[in-house]
């Protein structure tokens, strides 16, 4: 359910950008989706095929780059992937802090035909 309005937004962003560049057709849309953005690539693709029908984006290939969430340890100055049920730094064992890595959710670029 969640992915429907979001996918509409993706089609809108890509279409606006394509028209701005006098493109005829969008052939590829590159998305960057963080692990904690809560979005499932497969659902976006499913809605995309429905929503893009009849638009300049119809038939475009959705390329989804997934990004794992990373924590930061200020003491060791490292970024790390966390273990289940823990936020501890693998080097010093203290809890680090969440970062923006893994929360991405944006249209990176599009490929068009002119």
């Amino acid at each position, binding site marked *: 359910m*969640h992915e429907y309005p*979001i996918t509409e937004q993706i089609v809108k962003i890509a279409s606006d*950008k394509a028209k701005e560049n006098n493109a005829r057709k969008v052939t590829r849309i590159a998305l960057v989706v963080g692990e904690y953005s809560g979005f499932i690539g497969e659902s976006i693709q499913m809605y995309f095929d429905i929503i893009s029908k009849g638009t300049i984006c119809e038939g475009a290939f959705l390329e989804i780059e997934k990004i794992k969430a990373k924590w930061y340890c200020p003491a060791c100055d490292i970024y790390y992937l966390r273990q289940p049920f823990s936020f501890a730094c693998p080097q010093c064992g203290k809890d680090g802090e969440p970062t923006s890595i893994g*929360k991405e959710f*944006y249209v990176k670029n*599009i490929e*068009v*035909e002119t």
Partner: protein
Amino acid sequence: MSGKEIEVVQNIYDENDKIALETKASLEELGIFVVNVMGAPGAGKTSSIINIIRNLPEEKIYVIEGDIESDLDTVKLKDLGINTIQINTGGACHLDAPTIKNALQNLEFSQPGILFIENIGNLVCPAEFQIGEHIKMLICSAAEGSDKPYKYPLAFEKADVILLTKCDLKEYVDFNDDFFLKGIRGLNKSVPVFEVNAKTGQGFSAVAEWLKHKSH
């Protein structure tokens, strides 16, 4: 026929966030402080709102109830004389900024006060969508277990205040306080955590005190 790549780098939430900020600004002008109440289904969101309101007798209170269907919670609040409107999302798993913007047309703000918006019962999606709130209040019940910060980190990271509800049930569910708090601190160093019990009202005066301070 030539393929050409065009840089975009545009956040997909931009549109939603823009509307949320407009909503917040227009409510601020009316002196309304907005609390986005989030939590799993049945966590105790409505019970908590009712208990907080009881402890804020001198504040004007408004409530928007989000629900997939039914208006049971709205009826409960209206019976208590609270100015409440209902939104049914018909399946959507969270409230978003355009939905709230529309709903606000049906709510008359006669004087400054606090608006509670009860989000859809869900620990994942509501955390990602701003709706025009000043603060996010996360309701988490002891019955859900002490591992929730580890499984739903975003909700805990984004919360401005956390209520651990149903504390009367702790002993029945082997609730591990240290594990729960350690998880929260790994995500959010400064968020206040209040332990409450909606059956007795215990703990809610402290929440109300905190909120009053925050909203003025």
